[in-house]
């Protein structure tokens, strides 16, 4: 099993039923994996903030949701986290594929990536960065169970060390 297959299995077995994403190359195996399962509702949102709102609605309606985005898309979501998910104590899991590091060729991708972890820390949102396939299953399961047990959002950041990232052509 590769890292993406392990992540999909761990998150589905952790009860994720809705997957809302704004796509990224590194997320392709996850999007395809969740789609292939057939039991989940998997769809794109126009903007990452909207995906956070949908995920909050999913929880209010009795389901568990995952939001997937690229690191640049994280810049679109702080208000939805800070004014909705965090103060209402609405759990959801985010997967953020990291650009702007480890061989980034586009300078505009770099600054927002530096913002992600300090922003999550400031909001009190736990986050883990996946770099190795052997950690994927444990971290995906535990971060999800903690999020829903403690009623808080949580984030998984996918390093290029795991996904291969994106290189200049």
């Amino acid at each position, binding site marked *: 099993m590769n890292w993406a297959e392990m992540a999909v299995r761990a998150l589905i077995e952790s009860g994720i*039923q809705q997957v809302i994403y704004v796509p990224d190359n590194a997320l392709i195996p996850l999007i395809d994996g969740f789609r292939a399962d057939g039991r989940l509702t998997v769809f794109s*949102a126009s*903007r990452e*903030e909207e995906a956070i*709102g949908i995920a909050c609605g999913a929880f209010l*309606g009795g389901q568990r949701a995952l939001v997937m985005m690229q690191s640049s898309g994280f810049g679109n979501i702080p*208000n939805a986290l800070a004014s909705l998910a965090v103060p209402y104590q609405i759990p959801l899991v985010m997967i953020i594929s990291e650009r702007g590091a480890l061989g980034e060729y586009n300078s505009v991708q770099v600054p927002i990536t530096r913002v992600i972890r300090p922003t999550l820390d400031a909001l009190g949102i736990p986050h883990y960065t996946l770099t190795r396939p052997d950690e994927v299953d444990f971290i995906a399961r535990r971060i999800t169970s903690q999020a829903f047990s403690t009623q808080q959002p949580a984030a998984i950041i996918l390093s290029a060390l795991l996904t291969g990232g994106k290189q200049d052509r």
Partner: protein
Amino acid sequence: MTVQARFGGEVMNRLDLTRRLVALLTHGEAIVGGIGNSNFDLMGAGHRPENFYMLGSMGMAVPIGLGIALAQPERRVFVLDGDGSLLMNLGCLPTVAQVALKNLTIVVWDNSAYQITGKQATPTAEHTDLVTVARGAGIASAEWAKAEEHFEQLVERALHDDGPHFIGVRVDQSPGQARPERDPVILKDRFMRGIGVKGMN
């Protein structure tokens, strides 16, 4: 020609229409009240356990309603939001069309103003027809309510026909009449117990 002139219907009152909407809901329908006057008048129409009140997060009412409607396919979900809030997040309309939920209805109270911050005009005053925008996004059942009775007919249609539905309503600038309690965790908890899902997820 202004949007108002093209529209040609009555300018109505948000609290009156919220009361009329609530009176038609007899099967535990969920309502998401957008920030500001949308949820002030939702509260003013009388608290229901199936109401979810937003305290911030401008533009997130439709996404929240979409998530609830997906999770609760047997329950009709109504989202009440203002023109300013919807303008902040117009991208949600194509998503609603794409997911094509039968049980979701969006009601937009269009007073052509950012009323709560001092009544600054929004583009719907002169330029933007939100019902046309919704249709263009792919929500086929999108209509302006021409008068109070017509609004009730559109709500009845939303209760019986497959959605998604979009109901545009021109409203006056009367201030909202009540306030929900400003305790987000209690608002969440009441709603989830109100629709019977507390502890399910």
